[in-house]
């Protein structure tokens, strides 16, 4: 039943592909007004499908608390981004946190929806169903369609057919989704043995008109499903109709050809059956349908009583199978020995691409043929995605590693620059120069005030005036002790006159000078104020310096260690992934071998029976039909 699981997962992948275009459409997100510029920046990258960049920035801006207006939006977006990068656990945690009752219903709906997606992807279908059922009301259009599909798929896979059918019947969404819905419903109806209803659904899909490859593939699958359903229900004539609609050059044509042959065979027309089977037999033996045809063709010949031809074809089948077995053995051997890996990885360290990439470039290598088969598997796809993510992450780390070197240089330069200037700065700051200047200014202001109050006109005089005034004072003092005779009195008078004149001059100029000094004081105040502001800034910068550079250096060192450690872990993880993929590949090839063994046995048996009867003269009995024939 593995094939069904694989196919269902391919369906999911196809669904995801259809939804991809709509994924980063703001229709999906409730219309928001960007209130924090940084949140807008995250969206700018998100809308361009740069999920990793968006995630990095979102986390960084959260770290700096720069998204105060977008708490809920951030959490939802973060969850979605984690999801898209395969970090299911993280995403799950975020969404679960958003399920508190005090949050708006719209938010909780989206959280449930995402959680449903996560559970589904991890294979916890019941949980997925529960989660999706928690969504109340309607999500935006595309998400609603996606939700319905997920739920229907989960219900189908858990065997709840009726519910699934009811859900799909009520589905009313975009046309692409509608086709998928009908397909799933048709399949569910087949399971319920309701062939008529199944027919109408599957035929609707089987006759759709489109140019898109996904849609055409779906159409083929619908026809194939219907055809085989009818074969199972023993209605070969009805089976032919859809089977003939399957494209001859599509992925499903092999199975369709096989089915057509069986339909004809069931109707008893083995000659007609030979046509599709022979066509099939000419195709690549990799395909199981083709392998079956190797037995179906001789079977038909047997039925047509052309025993010699039948025998020939059986023999030929055996030869081909043996050759194929050998090739498979060789391929398995090469994969297991790791030789292939070695050769491919040699000298290719730079490009970080794994062995499976390379293999497809070597058409001559036998094992590369099988890889197409292997790659369809869900586990392989998952493993591949992980591997791709790991290599991508590795390359980002490498880029950072280079940058880290530059950062280190920058920090060093800065440290040295600081080391040079810090002593100066410290000295300056310690000198308290600004405070001293302030004091001096205050002193001066006080002196000026006192001069003004005392009207000490002489204090504001020019040097010459002050010198004169001094002289006059000295003379006054000298004269004070002199006798009061005419000569001395005359001197005193003259002195009084001179003093008077000078005094008059000083008084005259006093106001103007006073005003001048006031203005100068004002200018000084401005300059001082400016100086004080700068002082504060330098002081602040100085205080943050030791923590800055030391802290930066420490952080950088820690980050460098983490980079190296993670690079090592990544390398280890890449190896594990490769080994895992290797395991899958070998398992697939082993399965193929087993299948061939079965066919081989059948062929041998049929051949032996024919020879026995021929030898004993009895008519050759009806050969046993090959394993795949409907009973």
């Amino acid at each position: 039943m593995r094939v069904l699981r694989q196919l269902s997962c391919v369906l999911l992948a196809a669904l995801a592909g259809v939804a991809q275009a709509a994924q980063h459409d703001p229709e999906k997100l409730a219309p928001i007004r960007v209130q924090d510029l940084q949140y807008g920046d995250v969206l700018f990258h998100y809308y361009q499908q740069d999920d990793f960049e968006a995630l990095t920035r979102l986390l960084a801006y959260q770290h700096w608390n720069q998204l105060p207006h977008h708490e809920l939006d951030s959490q939802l977006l973060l969850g979605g981004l984690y999801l898209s990068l395969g970090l299911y656990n993280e995403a799950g945690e975020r969404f679960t946190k958003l399920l508190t009752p005090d949050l708006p219903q719209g938010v909780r709906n989206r959280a449930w929806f995402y959680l449903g997606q996560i559970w589904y992807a991890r294979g916890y279908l019941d949980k997925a169903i529960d989660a999706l059922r928690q969504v109340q009301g309607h999500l935006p259009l595309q998400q609603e369609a996606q939700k319905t599909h997920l739920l229907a798929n989960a219900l189908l896979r858990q065997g709840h057919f009726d519910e699934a059918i009811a859900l799909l019947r009520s589905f009313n969404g975009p046309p692409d989704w509608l086709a998928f819905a009908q397909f799933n419903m048709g399949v569910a109806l087949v399971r319920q043995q309701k062939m008529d209803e199944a027919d109408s659904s599957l035929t609707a899909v089987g006759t759709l008109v489109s140019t898109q490859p996904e849609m055409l593939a779906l159409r083929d699958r619908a026809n194939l499903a219907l055809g085989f359903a009818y074969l199972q229900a023993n209605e070969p004539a009805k089976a032919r109709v859809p089977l003939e609609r399957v494209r001859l050059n599509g992925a499903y044509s092999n199975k369709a050809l096989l089915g057509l042959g069986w339909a004809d065979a069931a109707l008893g027309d083995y000659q007609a059956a030979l046509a599709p089977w022979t066509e099939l037999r000419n195709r690549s033996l990799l395909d199981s349908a083709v392998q079956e045809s190797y037995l179906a063709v001789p079977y038909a010949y047997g039925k047509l009583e052309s025993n010699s031809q039948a025998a020939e074809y059986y023999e030929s089948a055996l030869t081909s199978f043996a050759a194929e077995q050998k090739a498979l053995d060789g391929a398995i051997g090469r994969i297991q020995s790791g030789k292939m890996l070695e050769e491919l990885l040699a000298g290719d360290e730079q490009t970080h691409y794994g062995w499976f990439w390379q293999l497809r470039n070597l058409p001559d290598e036998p094992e590369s043929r099988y890889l197409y088969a292997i790659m369809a598997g869900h586990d392989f796809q998952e493993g591949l995605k992980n591997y791709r993510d790991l290599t991508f992450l590795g390359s980002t780390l490498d880029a950072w590693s280079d940058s880290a070197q530059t950062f280190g240089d920058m920090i060093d330069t800065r440290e040295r620059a600081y080391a040079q200037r810090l002593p100066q700065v410290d000295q300056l700051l310690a000198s308290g120069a600004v405070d001293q200047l302030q004091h001096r200014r205050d002193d001066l202001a006080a002196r000026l005030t006192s001069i003004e109050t005392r009207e000490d006109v002489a204090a504001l005089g020019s040097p010459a005036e002050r010198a004169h005034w001094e002289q006059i004072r000295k003379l006054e003092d000298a004269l004070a002790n002199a006798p009061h005779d005419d000569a001395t009195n005359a001197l005193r008078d003259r002195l009084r006159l001179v003093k008077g004149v000078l005094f008059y001059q000083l008084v005259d100029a006093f106001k103007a000078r006073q005003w001048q000094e006031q203005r100068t004081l004002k200018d000084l105040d401005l300059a001082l104020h400016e100086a004080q502001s700068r002082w504060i800034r330098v002081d602040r910068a100085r205080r943050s310096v030791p923590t800055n550079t030391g802290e930066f250096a420490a952080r950088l060192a820690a980050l460098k260690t983490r980079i190296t450690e993670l690079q090592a872990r990544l390398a280890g993880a890449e190896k594990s992934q490769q080994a895992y993929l290797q395991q899958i590949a070998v398992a697939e090839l082993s399965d193929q071998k087993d299948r061939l063994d079965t066919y081989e046995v059948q062929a041998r048996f049929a051949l032996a029976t024919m020879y026995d009867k021929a030898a004993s003269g009895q008519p050759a009995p009806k050969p046993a039909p090959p394993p795949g024939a409907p009973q």
Partner: protein
Amino acid sequence: MKSFRVWSLPQRCIAAATLTILCLTAFAQGPALLGQSAPDFALRSFSGTNVRLSEDRGDVVVITFWGSQCGVCRKQLDMLDRSFATYRSAGLHMYGVSVDDDAAHARQYVSAHPLAFAMLEDPAKEVARLYQIDNLPTTVLIDRGGIVRHVYRDFGPRDEALYLSQLRELLNE
């Protein structure tokens, strides 16, 4: 550390020689971009839209530097055009960057010989410098991870087969 003057003659010669070699290597014409991340850039196309290289991450990109006066360039452009038509749907982007001194010439050529892929103008020759273009035509092949994988500095008839096979390899990744 000793000052230079104190070094002996042989030491000085060696130092000088090393310095010369380093200088020469710095100017050496070699595809130093091989294996490195392709430098990102944004240019205007002649048709009006702008193109940024990093947006094509995940696809294979071919950038060819050409001049309207170079005859070999024209042949190569035609060849590249054919490959573009074939492989476009497999995820191939192709750009022609004109390094004409005279933008008008380039424009004339482009209108006269329309090609399916976008032609970009690099008036300041910034991108040509980034990609160390010293010969025309030069074609650069960039893989899906943005790494320069092949650089063709000459074009001859033999090169088409090699180019196509290498292109297919990259597309299969």
